[in-house]
């Protein structure tokens, strides 16, 4: 009763709904990251009650993580880094006239993942925060390698081409300022390249612009009949996507509490594991509901569990958590162990607000889906033009730079060439996303050990993660060898 009373006696419910709606809008716009969406809202919360302000910011994060999947499914443009893994099967379902079903699975899985993450946050904040403290540079390096090990299984069409794409992605991640010495690398004296190439540029270019270029030379794909309504999964689908949701939620929990892990890594790992454990492996990449459920559950779990180290230790595990930390400080609150003692009302209010935010995500998501599906069902020339306008506007918004628009265009051409040559795109995205994490932590670990590589074996967490990566790689190579073995003639 006390909980319900505090819900209705404050502005928590409207704040959660408003935050989620704002977050979905920001997340759905390519180039506007969840952290930017939250940062834009931060000044507006200044005059609010601290609990209401924190709830609004956290709800924005929840909404943004979900919002990124909407353009990923409908127009092959991930709104956030974490939505990149949803592109593959989400857009394939859209092409089959099943956009409403894909969006329903995404929304439902996001809801399940969000509640799972909230439960973990409420019940396990303290023990989980110890995981964050156990992460050393060598463990981060191992985590990055574990993420990269997914490349082998994402390259089912051609292992060599997938690996080539992955290495190219790693190469792209080296552009900019060196993470240890500060030396400029591959910048050609251009100040625009000093901060590197943001992964979202690569994704928008490869997926959205690449798709536009491919469709320009092809007959219209928009003739597929489409019901402009969201379709939530029924009992049979619940059963089918329960395991991928569980996989995504567990991976999202672990990734969320690790500073630097983030939604993108968890989405890819969840996608890979969902395929490994699926009874319908052959459907992955061609419109598998499980291929949407796992990454969506993972990145929405991360939206809650990323708050674990921030609340209990004062360590922001992502850019979005850092903005939320800014919100706490703005209102005179100091996250850390004492927060639970000194401001229990804020903590309880935040937990309540996150619960409301997950419900709000379903309601707001349901309301906006119909218009979204209707929009992408417009005649192809208009749809292409508006996607192009959205992409150039969103990409410019990252750093107010026309150079970024040119880079995204260049990656669009690269994406088109890669498709034409049968090279998978996801391994390149993974390389770009994880390249910095891998290199910076590999070198920091070696600085700590004085150049001794045994540090990666001596650190137990790193050793376990590297062993897992090795198992994944060997398993994928073995499966690939079996699948490509010439079959004996009957």
């Amino acid at each position, binding site marked *: 009763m006390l909980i319900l009373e505090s819900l209705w006696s404050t502005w928590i419910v409207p704040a959660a709904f408003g935050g989620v709606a704002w977050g979905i809008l920001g997340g759905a*716009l390519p180039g506007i990251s969840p952290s930017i969406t939250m940062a834009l809202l931060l000044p507006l919360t200044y005059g609010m009650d601290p609990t209401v302000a924190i709830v609004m910011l956290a709800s924005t994060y929840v909404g943004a993580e979900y919002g990124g999947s909407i353009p990923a499914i409908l127009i092959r443009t991930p709104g956030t880094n974490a939505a990149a893994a949803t592109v593959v099967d989400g857009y394939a379902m859209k092409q089959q006239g099943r956009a409403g079903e894909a969006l329903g699975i995404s929304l439902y899985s996001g809801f399940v993942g969000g509640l799972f993450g909230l439960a973990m946050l409420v019940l396990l904040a303290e023990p989980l925060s110890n995981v964050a403290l156990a992460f050393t540079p060598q463990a981060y390096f191992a985590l990055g390698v574990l993420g990269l090990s997914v490349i082998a299984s994402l390259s089912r069409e051609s292992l060599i081409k997938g690996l080539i794409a992955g290495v190219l992605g790693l190469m792209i991640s080296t552009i900019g300022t060196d993470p240890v010495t500060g030396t400029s690398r591959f910048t050609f004296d251009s100040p625009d390249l000093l901060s590197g190439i943001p992964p979202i540029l690569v994704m928008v270019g490869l997926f959205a612009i690449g798709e*536009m270029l491919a469709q320009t030379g092809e007959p219209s794909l928009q003739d597929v009949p489409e019901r402009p309504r969201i379709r939530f999964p029924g009992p049979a689908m619940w059963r089918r996507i329960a395991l991928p949701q569980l996989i995504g939620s567990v991976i999202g929990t672990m990734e969320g509490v690790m500073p630097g892990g983030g939604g993108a890594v968890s989405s890819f790992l969840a996608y890979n594991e969902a395929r490994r454990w699926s009874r319908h492996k052959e459907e992955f990449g061609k419109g598998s509901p499980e291929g949407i459920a796992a990454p969506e559950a993972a990145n929405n779990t991360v939206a809650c569990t990323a708050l674990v180290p921030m609340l209990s230790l004062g360590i922001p595990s992502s850019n979005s958590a850092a903005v939320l930390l800014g919100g706490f400080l703005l209102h005179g609150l100091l996250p850390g162990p004492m927060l639970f003692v000194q401001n229990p009302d804020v903590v309880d209010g935040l937990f309540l607000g996150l619960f409301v935010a997950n419900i709000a995500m379903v309601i707001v998501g349901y309301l906006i889906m119909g218009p979204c599906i209707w929009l992408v069902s417009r005649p192809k020339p208009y749809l*292409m033009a*508006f996607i192009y306008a959205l992409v150039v506007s969103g990409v410019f918004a990252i750093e107010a730079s026309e150079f970024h628009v*040119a880079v995204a*265009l260049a990656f669009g051409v690269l994406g088109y060439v890669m*498709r034409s040559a049968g*090279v998978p795109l996801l391994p390149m995205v993974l390389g770009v996303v994880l390249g910095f994490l891998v290199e910076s932590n590999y070198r920091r670990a070696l600085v700590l050990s004085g*150049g001794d590589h045994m540090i990666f074996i001596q650190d137990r967490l790193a050793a376990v993660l590297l062993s897992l990566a090795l198992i994944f790689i060997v398993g994928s190579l073995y499966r690939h060898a079996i699948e*490509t073995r010439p079959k004996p003639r009957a």
Partner: protein
Amino acid sequence: MNRDLALGGATLAIAIAYYLLSAQIPESQLADAVGPQGLPRVYAYILGALSLALIGSAIRGSGLGARDSKEPSNPESRVPSPGLKILRPLGVVAIGVIYIVVVPWLGYIVSLAGLIAATTYYQGGGFSRRVVIVALSGALLFWGLFVAILGIQHPAGIWPSLF
């Protein structure tokens, strides 16, 4: 096979160029055991080796690249139709390039309206009063979303100086 051979050749050239560029990265007084050139060189070696493997596989027409000769089942691997259809996408890129060039002068709204109208026309939507209205409405919609609501400044162009 020819496609894989060309791809292997292109990525081998990238590996060599990348290696040469990484060799030009200046040494730093703060350099660690690996240095800023360390991992780039490793990536160049790996890409070179993979490129040679792809070339070898394409020449043999078997081995790890054998599946490449089959019809790709992945929707990402759609092969464009031959002939002029392959060149048509370049027009879309050209529209984007023109947008980048003119937006500092014409400003966001006018340039974006031009981009929408040109893309609609290029994609077969024709050129009519309707296209113009849709383009202008679309540009205003995006301006409202990005500039008015989100507060992200896009180039205003020459217009403010005229008034």
